[in-house]
């Protein structure tokens, strides 16, 4: 039952209004422009027969005489194994010159997971990056952002995580991506081989703003289907600030009253609805969500990082190309540290961070020209060892190797009794000569 209309009555922002009968909220329409372009639009409201359509590719150049066809179905995305290795736009069409995907479509933005069916997360996601695995262990079903100043290598970090992780499937959602970054991801994944287990939904900075908003929903709908099919999925979304800015732009063009710095009052719920897709399904797969949230002006109290902090389970701070060991926190780490990882994990990690904090103070004393004690000098040596071996994002080691490395660094810099670690661990794992 496809209906066609030929008269657009009003165009404003990304919204086009038509007179139409029997259309449903959320229904998709196709707009065919005079110059032969075809774009999708979604019914976002109606008042009697006046129907408002949000046009995915924007209303630029749309004419009052363009042809509108209602498709009697909501936005969907094809799903199947043939998505792996492929790249799609924010409206779900292939942008990698590959063929159309002929798989059964699934709904996007589906219902939420029943809390009473959730389980306490207890499995680790390995990234082989020490600042994550060893100090802020990621747990299956966790949702965690990378808080970063624009310009930091956050996309490099995501690419690295994707290539080193033991997850079964990677779904990457890019929002407001620069073309260079998109190419970077593609090349990196091809080289590392991760591309074969990866699906990408990419909205480039130059693409229409409505498509930006669709990216997380497409990515998460696909991730959810894989999870139901017993796959552990890592969903990477970059940059959620671009996503929020797209929400802001659309809300303002629809004359919604903004709540805080122009962002709509629903920003918290809009972000949470996406992040909360993270889940570990009992007896089946899982979704773990790592995002990038760039902080305008390096300000954590900016509405986007602020609302995000209230939703996620901790955060990684990216500073000067490294994951900051102090502000970063995985709120779920205690679920796996020393439980699924080696018994000394938690104590070793805490001791190393404590020593690094002391070492930072010694570095301050050094830079202020104070005389340094013998202990200060040990700490200094330790700080350089720690930074080059543990904090470097290029390190790629299994968690057990990371722990061994940690013990080696301690042995290299300190005496056995200076670490404050339990005798039990020192005896079992310490690397000092007996």
């Amino acid at each position, binding site marked *: 039952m496809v209906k066609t209309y030929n008269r657009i009555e009003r165009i404003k922002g990304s919204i086009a209004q038509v007179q139409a009968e029997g259309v449903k909220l959320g229904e998709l329409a196709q707009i065919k422009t005079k110059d032969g372009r075809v774009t999708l639009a979604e019914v976002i409201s109606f008042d009697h027969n006046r129907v408002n359509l949000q046009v995915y590719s924007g209303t630029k150049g749309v004419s009052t005489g363009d042809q509108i066809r209602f498709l009697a179905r909501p936005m969907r995305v094809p799903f199947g194994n043939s998505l792996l290795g492929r790249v799609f736009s924010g409206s779900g069409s292939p942008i990698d010159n590959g063929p159309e995907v002929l798989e059964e479509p699934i709904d996007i933005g589906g219902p939420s997971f029943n809390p009473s069916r959730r389980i306490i997360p207890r499995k680790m996601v390995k990234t082989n990056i020490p600042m994550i695995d060893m100090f802020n262990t990621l747990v299956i079903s966790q949702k965690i952002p990378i808080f970063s100043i624009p310009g930091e290598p956050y996309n490099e970090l995501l690419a690295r995580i994707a290539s080193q992780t033991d997850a079964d499937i990677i779904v990457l959602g890019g929002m407001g991506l620069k073309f260079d970054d998109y190419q970077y991801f593609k090349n990196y994944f091809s080289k590392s081989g991760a591309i074969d287990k990866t699906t990408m939904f990419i909205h480039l900075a130059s693409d229409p703003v409505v498509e930006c908003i669709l990216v997380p929903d497409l990515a998460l709908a696909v991730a959810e289907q894989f999870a139901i099919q017993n796959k552990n999925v890592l969903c990477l979304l970059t940059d959620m600030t671009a996503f929020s800015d797209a929400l802001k732009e659309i809300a303002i063009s629809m004359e919604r009253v903004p709540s*805080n710095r122009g962002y709509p009052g629903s920003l918290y719920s809009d972000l*949470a609805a996406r992040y909360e897709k993270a889940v570990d399904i009992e007896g089946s797969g899982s979704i773990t969500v790592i995002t990038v949230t760039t902080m305008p002006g390096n300000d954590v109290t900016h509405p986007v990082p602020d609302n995000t902090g209230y939703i996620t389970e901790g955060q990684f701070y990216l500073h000067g190309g490294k994951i900051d060991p102090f502000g970063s926190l995985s709120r779920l780490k205690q679920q796996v540290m020393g439980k699924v990882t080696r018994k000394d994990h938690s104590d070793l990690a805490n001791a190393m961070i404590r020593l690094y904090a002391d070492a930072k103070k010694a570095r301050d004393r050094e830079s202020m020209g104070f005389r340094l004690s013998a202990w200060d000098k040990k700490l200094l040596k330790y700080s350089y060892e720690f930074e080059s071996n543990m904090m470097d994002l290029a390190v790629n080691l299994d968690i057990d190797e990371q722990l061994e490395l940690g013990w080696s660094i301690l042995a290299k810099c300190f005496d056995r009794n200076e670490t404050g670690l339990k005798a039990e661990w020192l005896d079992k794992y310490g690397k000092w000569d007996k």
Partner: protein
Amino acid sequence: MDKEFAKGRIVAAQGNLMTVEFEGIIRQNEVVYVQTGSEKLKGEVIEINGNEAKVQVFELTNGIKLNDEVSFTGDLLFVELGPGLLKNVYDGLQNPLEEVAQAKGYFLPRGVYLNALPRGVKWEFTPIAKKGDTVEKGDFLGSVPEGVISHKIMVPFQFQGKGTIIEVKKKGSYTVEEEIAKIKDEEGKIHSVNMIQKWPAKFPLRLGERVLPTEKLSTACRIIDGPFPVAKGGTFCTPGPFGAGKTVLQHQISKYAEIEVVVVVACGERAGEVVELLREFPHLDDPKTGKKLMDRTCIICNTSSMPVAARESSVYVGVTIAEYYRQMGVDTLLLADSTSRWAQALREMSGRLEEIPGEEAFPAYLASRISEFYERAGVIRFKNGDTASLTIGGSVSPAGGNFEEPVTQATLAVVGCFLGLSRSRSDARRFPAIDPLISWSKYLDRFAEYGKVDNSAIIKKAQEFIHEGNEIGKKMSVVGEEGIQIDDIVLYLKGEFYDSVFLQQNAFDKVDTATDEKRQKEQLSIIKIVLDRDFVFEERDEARSFFLNLTDKVIQWNYTPMDNKSYGEKKMEIIRMIEG
């Protein structure tokens, strides 16, 4: 009721807000159902104008179209009350989530509304009233054991005037739907009563006389029970930036507070946090009763990805259930995490209604809604002189962690106790991160006035050390330790000592996690000795290392169970150390 309810049809829709053209008589806040395809979606009337009503739908609205049928129910949004509420987990519309999962699987499909109370369970009924008694609404007809409490079956709260009992069922087991009594009203009409009551969620349920809360609620959290206590029947709030520890604190209180029934409302926060309660509570013992914690707990869970409109009602559903238990004479505690999410739900709806926005786009009535909510707390006295309380604690999530925002400010204006969590304390891992410099409780003086606490002198003194110590600390960071008098350093160290061994508490140590009143008293007696004593130190370092050692000793003592043999020894050792 047999009257015809109004009917209508959808004429406009945007997001969750529907405009409905109707025929018949409708009420503000009446519950409606929108029929879309094969699904029936619940909604609520929020504005009426001529023959058009604005309806907010509690679920995803995809697929709704012009002329979809709307049926009015004549009822306001009500809460189903009766035995079986405890141990249960509901969404914001009181759907039992476990049953929904059994019927529908992993996800929460829309348009599923199941009975809140289990219909098949038989309850052991013991009559209290007898034939011929004169009764009125809220009077006890009988009781059934529910977990740890004796659940009273009451004369329906809507019952008008005096009634005469025609019949009460004899002792035996009955389901909630079976008749357990017949009551004749003043007009001679006979009412059949079963165990189910219904009450409109947005109206306070309070039968009895309100009296001033003067009893202390023991939370086993020292920084609360000491300097910032909460009254049974009082209100408190815990605002704080993300990650400051609001949720951990609420979970702690829900576990250890000395109270008979706890209602937890997880309102617009993470689903994962509710799961901890769901999975842990059935296994944790309630030290007071020996039963499981879950037996005294009811959880309302409308987490952040569940429909926003139902988030608004979740808070009211929770507080109505809590009031219901208070009505049977049970001391009840309601915890809501986070009231800011509820306020945001109000804001979203207000925006769609195009109401004139107030500060940060919150509606102008935000403050009055917040105060109406907290006002549902309180102590009531019944006809027989017994009293029961409902205590309400809400967490607040201020934007940017800045308390100068509408929700925090409106909350501070109505609560009796403010437990402000600060970023500086959580960053320094001084947990619970309640900041002793900004928090306050109006109950501390009241308890002293009513002779209900005897530690207020030492607590007040310790607080002075905290404030003065903080001033000295600030100076120290400017001029360095060298610039400070040794006496002042000792004062500062005494403040730090009190902070470390009393105000801070390790939630992850199985002994320190909860401290009862008796033990707090002992700890305070040690603190009193330390604060009162004139220590003489030659060197600053000497003072520092003395207090460092002392602090460490007391913390170790805090980790020792009271019934452990070494408990007394450790205490003596501490006293010897103080007295040099």
